[in-house]
């Protein structure tokens, strides 16, 4: 049987498509513009003549970035940070969320106290300078771990995991305990295998966070060689100091005046976001399930 659509419904659908189409275009067009700018010559970019297709094709901006040692160093730093940060965050999230999910006071008497203990960190922070002082007094400044340890327990993820654990049937746990498993084994062998979906969500949150974080890199790292990619992207100063450009530099490297701030910025933004853009469509469904997951409770 075919459901007949009323006229008003048709109009609604048409307008809906137009509206969503415009919304989608407004997201993708700036990126395309950036792409076109990054492949255009300096004069064209300076005259603001570039729209959605490169004019006077030039790869000078990419040559400039890829010829720079710093880009690779920062890229490696970010990869390391994402991998290590993911591992640390995920293991600590599970270790915190599992006990906090036991709301039976006979199992975990001080649960309330600990829940508040963790929740408070979500609402109150020491502020920039005191946090920096703590990190610097424990000698973490200029160390890789300054990027990992200060945010080692992501409370938002703990909340998601906690609610997910709570949602699992208690009888499974009781069965495991009856069979002689201790708490740790129950968590490891029963709860974690059952939570793969929410673990994927939390992983995605954590990975995206680590990929995008730039401010901690800026304040904790003393030398640009140690900047993660996003800090480097943020910090690159693209104003060429004209007084410092000499004719020799230009003779050796005629491209120097051919790259503009905007061209390099465009190229860098694309090079830095491309990896996460490629991964995103495949993980996006977990994002949606993950956000909904914690919201329904028994």
């Amino acid at each position, binding site marked *: 049987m075919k459901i007949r659509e009323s006229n008003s419904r048709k109009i609604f659908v048409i307008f809906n498509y137009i509206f969503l189409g415009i919304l989608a275009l407004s997201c993708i067009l700036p990126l395309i513009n950036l792409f076109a700018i990054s492949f255009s010559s300096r004069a064209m970019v300076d*005259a603001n003549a570039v729209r959605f297709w490169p004019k006077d094709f030039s790869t000078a901006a990419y040559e400039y970035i890829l010829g720079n040692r710093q880009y690779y160093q920062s890229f490696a730093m970010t990869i390391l940070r994402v991998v290590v940060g993911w591992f640390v965050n995920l293991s600590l999230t599970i270790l915190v969320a599992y006990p906090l999910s036991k709301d039976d006071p006979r199992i975990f008497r001080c649960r309330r106290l600990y829940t508040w203990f963790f929740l408070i960190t979500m609402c109150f922070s020491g502020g920039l300078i005191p946090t920096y002082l703590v990190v610097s007094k424990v000698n973490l400044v200029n160390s890789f771990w300054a990027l990992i340890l200060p945010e080692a327990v992501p409370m938002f993820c703990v909340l998601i995991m906690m609610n997910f654990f709570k949602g699992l049937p208690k009888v499974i746990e009781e069965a495991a305990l009856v069979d002689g498993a201790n708490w740790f084994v129950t968590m490891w062998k029963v709860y974690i295998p059952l939570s793969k979906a929410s673990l994927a969500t939390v992983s995605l949150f954590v990975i995206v966070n680590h990929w995008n974080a730039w401010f901690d890199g800026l*304040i904790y790292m003393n030398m640009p060689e140690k900047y993660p990619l996003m800090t480097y992207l943020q910090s690159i100063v693209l104003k060429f100091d004209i007084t410092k450009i000499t*004719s020799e530099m230009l003779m050796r490297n005629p491209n120097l005046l051919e790259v503009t701030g905007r061209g390099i910025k465009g190229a860098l933004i694309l090079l830095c976001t491309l990896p996460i853009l490629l991964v995103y469509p495949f993980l996006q469904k977990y994002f949606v399930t993950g956000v909904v997951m914690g919201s329904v409770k028994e």
Partner: protein
Amino acid sequence: MKSKKVLALLLTGVIALSLSACSSGGGTEAEKTGDSTGTESGSVNTSEGDIAELTVMHKLSGNEKYREGDDINNNVWTRYYLEEYGIKLNYTVAAVGDDYTQKLTMAIASKDLPDLIEVPAKEFQELAAAGMLADLTDVYEQEASDLLKSALEADGGTQLASAQIDGRLYGIPQVAAADSTCDLLWIRTDWLEKVGLEAPTNMEELLEVARAFRYDDPDGNGQDDTWGIGFQKETNGQDGASPGSFEGFFAAYGAYARAWLPDEDGSIAYTGIRSGMKSALAQLNQMYEEGLLDPEFGVKDATKLSEDIASGRVGMFYGNEGVPWGAAKSCIEMNPEADWQCYPIVSATDDVAKPISYVRLNKYFVINKNCENPEAIIKLANAFQDKINSLESSEETLNTFGVDPETGINLAEYAAVALDPAVQKCNTYYAEIKAALSGEVKPEEIHPEAKRYYETIKAYLDNGSDKTNDSLGWNYYKFIGPEGSWNTIINSYKANDILVESVFFGASTPTMGTKLASLDKMQSENYINIIMGTKEADAFDEFVNNWKTLGGDEITKEVNEWYDATFSDIK
């Protein structure tokens, strides 16, 4: 239900806290600088033998490249310092641009300052007042070479005096070349020819040119798409704005947007409230009504205006001497017919127009007071002057310590206490290049760095001034060639003694710190409103009154006090 209430309460708390967190930033900073006791440098200043080790905080340009095997702690400069002076530099913190200021704030807050630091003017005042800097008076007297002294005191010692507190020297300022901040009138000569006019020599002629550029289709494309004269939105910006500056236009009426100049009675007064400014704004309003200005100028910054210049919509604007490198360069690359030339600014009255220049002191090199070797900073400064800025330095020295001819890497970028050349060096170059081009001296006899520029210009001229294929040669030619901005205009400004210099260049006075930002905003809004006709020109008088009562008078008083205190020795 109960948990929901708790959650709501919690969220409200979060919002309130995050709001208050935003406003609490300033407080902590003030606390930190107030507390000067117990500063301990994290560095080790042990003297092993005769080697002085210094930790350094360094501002990067973002363009540094190193030769194979070199890095910031091991390069031709650090090796030279170690061999020649026994000074070992450890660069512990380095960052680019604004990030550097952020790192500096963190270092000050955590009282973990390195030995040798580069600081902006505001932080210099704070650190010096808090007693965190070493007194350099004696070491400067003993160690500074004649060359360094002449570079630092080229302006009669006024800028160096800004680094003194109660007669003691606490830092080495990067002496600024104020000359280069004055405005020139840039005009597209191909458009001038097209409309059959000469370069303007007074305001009437300038208006005529502007009308022709606006309505006589100077680009010949048959479309109404050109503006008479280009301006951007910053009427009175802190660091000026080029292209599209207003200062050159205001100067036609004897007024300046943010200069401090002596009045008839000898006291220092703000020029942004001079009566001439009212006429200038009224004139701009008239031009706006005539359609000579882009109605969108109030939202366009210098970058946006540059786009208009590059794409051939603007053929006349006020700007500084560096314009051939930016917008005008893109313009000739887009359109080979285009050509630009700079002219002296014009006057609207019988008096000659006097361009204004500003000293923009933006950095000081300082030594932590806990450092045991404060004399190192002077030695390092000497080294840079000897190697790079000396007019006697040989081509070989420049190749070793300056631009490496093999790789094109500018090694001077990672020298410590690198004080850029003072004014007289530039002037010497321009004179030498001009003499070499006219054949008065042989190119071999002039300074090796000047010779490099000379060769670029010579090649450009020899190849028939082909600016399409040699836009770089065009840059140099317009910049320091015989028709260049510096030679033709700035030197003639100076020769005729009409270049005016704003006398205030210290860090903000106390009232400036609290009120200047809102006063500047008020000034800018009033100017733009009068130009665009949303306010009558008479609103200017009201603005002047408001400016005075809302803190302007206090600031004027403080500026006069600063002036008397700073220049009492030198006057």
